[in-house]
C-alpha cells in the first residue's frame, strides 16, 4: 500500500510541476521502480551476507573448542576468496552470454558504469558464498586449512556458477521449466553434495567410529557451545529473509510478503518436526536436532517459497524436520560418514526434498504440482534437475578433492588433529585463559 501512495504522490507532483505529460509520468514510475529494486536487492544481499556469521557460529558451536579459530578462518576466507573469484570468473560463467545453455561466457572481471550489473553481482555473490561455506561445517576439525582454501576457490569460480547457470542464468534446465525460486538446488544442494564428497574423501575424525571386530560403533563428539549454535541458527534464519524474499529480484513485487510468510512457517514447522521426532526417538526433545530442524525447514521451502500456500509451506517444513533427523542418523550410523554439523542432511537432503516439493505443492498459473492437478510433469522436471546438478557437483568436487588429496594433502596429521587445529594450523587459542581439555 505504501509503495502505491508513493507512486501517487510522485505522479501528482509530476503533473502539477511540469504540466501533464505521459513521458514524465512513465519516467517517474520507472525511477520509482529502479530505486526500490536497487534498495531492496542491496538490503536483501546484506542480509544474505550476514548468513556467513550464522554458518560460522553454528559450526563453532557444534564442534570442539580447540578448532574454533580454524572454523572462523574458513568462514572468513571462503567468502573473501570466493567473492574475488566470483568477480573474476563466477559471474561470467553463471550470468554471461549463454553458450548452448551450458555455461555463460562474457562479463569476466566486472567493471564499467552499469550500476544494475553491480547490484546484481552483489546480490549473487553472497549466494555463491553461501554454497561454498556449507562445506566448511561438514569437513570441520580435520581438514588442512590450505586445502580448504583451494577448494573454496574452485567452487566459487567454477562448480557453483555452471550449475547455477543451468537454472538461474538462462541455461538448459530453466528452459525446460525447472523451477528453483531461491536456491534449494542451486545453492543448498550444491553445498550438500560437495560436503558429502568432501567428508568421504577426508574420512571421519579420530575417535568418531570405533571398530571392535566387524562391528563399528559411532561415538558422539560433543559440540562445545550450544548457545553459539543457537545464535548461529537465528542469524541464518534472519538472513533467510534476504535469501528468499530478496529472490523476488524486485523491490516492487508484492510476492515478497508471501515468500516471507511461507519461509517463516516452514522454518517453524521444521524445528517442530525435528523436535517431535527426536522426542520420540531419543525420549527427550533434542536441542541441536531442533536447531538443525529449523535450518532444514528453511532449506526445504527455499525452492517453492513463492509458489506454495502457507499450509503447504507448513507441510513442507514438517517433512523437512522429519527428514533431517532420520538422515543425520542414517549418514552417521549406517553410512559412517562423519558430518559434525549435519550439513549433508540439512543442505543436501533437504535441498533435494525442497526442490521436489515444487513439483508436489506448487500452485500458481505457471507451476502446478502433483497435488494441485499438475500431474507428474513438473515433478519429473524437478527430479531431472536434482539428479543432473547432483552428478555435476559430485563429479567435479570428486575430481577436485582427489587431486588435492594426491598433490597437496587434504587432512592434517594425527598429532595436529589431536592437539587441535587452532594450535596446529594457526598457532592461536580461541579461548585463551580458559581451561580446556584438549584430549578428545
Amino acid at each position, binding site marked *: 500500500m505504501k509503495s502505491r501512495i508513493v507512486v501517487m504522490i510522485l505522479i501528482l507532483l509530476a503533473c502539477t510541476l511540469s504540466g501533464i505529460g505521459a513521458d514524465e509520468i512513465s519516467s517517474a514510475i520507472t525511477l520509482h521502480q529502479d530505486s526500490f529494486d536497487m534498495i531492496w536487492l542491496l538490503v536483501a544481499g546484506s542480509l544474505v551476507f550476514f548468513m556467513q556469521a550464522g554458518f560460522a557460529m553454528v559450526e563453532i558451536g557444534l564442534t570442539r573448542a580447540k578448532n574454533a579459530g580454524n572454523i572462523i578462518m574458513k568462514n572468513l576466507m571462503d567468502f573473501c576468496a570466493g567473492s574475488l573469484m566470483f568477480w573474476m570468473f563466477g559471474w561470467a560463467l553463471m550470468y554471461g552470454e549463454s553458450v548452448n545453455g551450458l555455461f555463460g561466457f562474457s562479463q569476466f572481471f566486472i567493471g564499467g558504469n552499469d550500476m544494475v550489473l553491480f547490484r546484481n553481482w552483489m546480490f549473487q555473490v553472497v549466494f555463491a558464498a553461501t554454497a561454498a561455506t556449507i562445506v566448511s561445517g561438514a569437513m570441520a576439525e580435520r581438514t588442512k586449512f590450505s586445502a580448504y582454501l583451494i577448494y573454496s576457490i574452485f567452487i566459487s569460480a567454477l562448480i557453483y556458477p555452471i550449475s547455477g547457470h543451468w537454472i538461474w542464468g538462462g541455461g538448459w534446465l530453466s528452459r525446460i521449466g525447472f523451477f528453483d525460486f531461491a536456491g534449494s538446488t542451486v545453492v543448498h544442494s550444491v553445498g550438500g553434495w560437495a560436503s558429502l564428497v568432501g567428508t568421504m574423501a577426508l574420512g571421519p575424525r579420530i575417535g568418531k567410529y570405533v571398530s571392535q571386530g566387524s562391528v563399528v560403533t559411532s561415538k558422539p563428539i560433543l559440540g562445545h557451545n550450544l548457545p553459539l549454535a543457537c545464535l548461529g541458527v537465528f542469524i541464518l534464519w534472519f538472513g533467510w529473509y534476504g535469501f528468499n524474499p530478496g529472490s523476488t529480484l524486485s523491490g516492487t513485487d508484492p510476492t515478497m510478503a508471501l515468500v516471507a510468510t511461507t519461509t517463516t512457517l516452514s522454518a517453524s514447522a521444521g524445528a517442530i518436526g525435528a523436535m517431535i521426532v527426536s522426542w520420540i526417538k531419543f525420549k527427550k526433545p533434542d536441542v541441536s536436532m531442533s536447531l538443525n530442524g529449523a535450518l532444514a525447514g528453511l532449506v526445504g521451502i527455499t525452492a517453492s517459497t513463492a509458489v506454495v500456500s502457507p499450509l503447504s509451506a507448513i507441510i513442507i517444513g514438517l517433512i523437512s524436520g522429519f527428514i533431517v533427523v532420520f538422515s543425520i542418523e542414517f549418514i552417521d550410523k549406517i553410512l559412517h560418514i562423519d558430518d559434525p554439523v549435519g550439513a549433508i542432511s540439512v543442505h543436501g537432503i533437504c535441498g533435494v526434498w525442497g526442490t521436489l516439493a515444487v513439483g508436489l505443492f506448487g500452485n500458481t498459473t505457471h507451476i502446478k504440482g502433483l497435488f494441485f492437478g499438475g500431474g507428474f510433469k513438473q515433478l519429473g522436471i524437478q527430479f531431472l534437475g536434482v539428479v543432473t546438478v547432483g552428478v555435476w557437483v559430485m563429479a567435479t568436487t570428486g575430481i577436485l578433492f582427489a587431486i588435492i588429496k594426491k598433490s597437496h594433502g587434504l587432512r592434517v596429521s594425527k*598429532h595436529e588433529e589431536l592437539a587441535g587445529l587452532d594450535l596446529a594450523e594457526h*598457532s592461536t587459542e580461541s579461548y585463551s585463559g580458559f581451561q580446556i581439555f584438549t584430549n*578428545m
Partner: protein
Amino acid sequence: MKLIVAYIQPEKLNDVKQELYRREIFKISVSNSLGCGQQKGYKKVYRGVDIEVNLLKKVRIEIAVNDAFVEPTIEAILDGAQTSVIGDGKIFVLPIEQCIRIRNRENGPQAIG
C-alpha cells in the same frame, strides 16, 4: 601400595586410557595442569607479537595401585604417551602410607581395589 603420578601431553590422554584399559586398570584421576620441564616453555606469535609461553598445558594423571599393578601401569602410560619428542612428560612413583575407602571405612590394599 603405590601412587603413580604422571604428567603427559593432553592429546595423549585418550591413548593412555586405552592402554590402561587393555591392562585392566580402570581407576584413574585426571586433572588439567600447567607446567614446564627441560623445554622451558616455547615461543609463539599472537597478532604478530612474540609471546613467551613458560607454562605448557599438561594433563596430570594419578593412579593408586597395589604393588602387583605398578609395572603394568607404568608400561601402559609409557606405551600411550611416548612420542620420543621433548615434552612427553614424566612419571613419578610414590609410596602410599594409608588408603581408606570413605564409603565403608575399608583400609589398606583392599581399599584400593
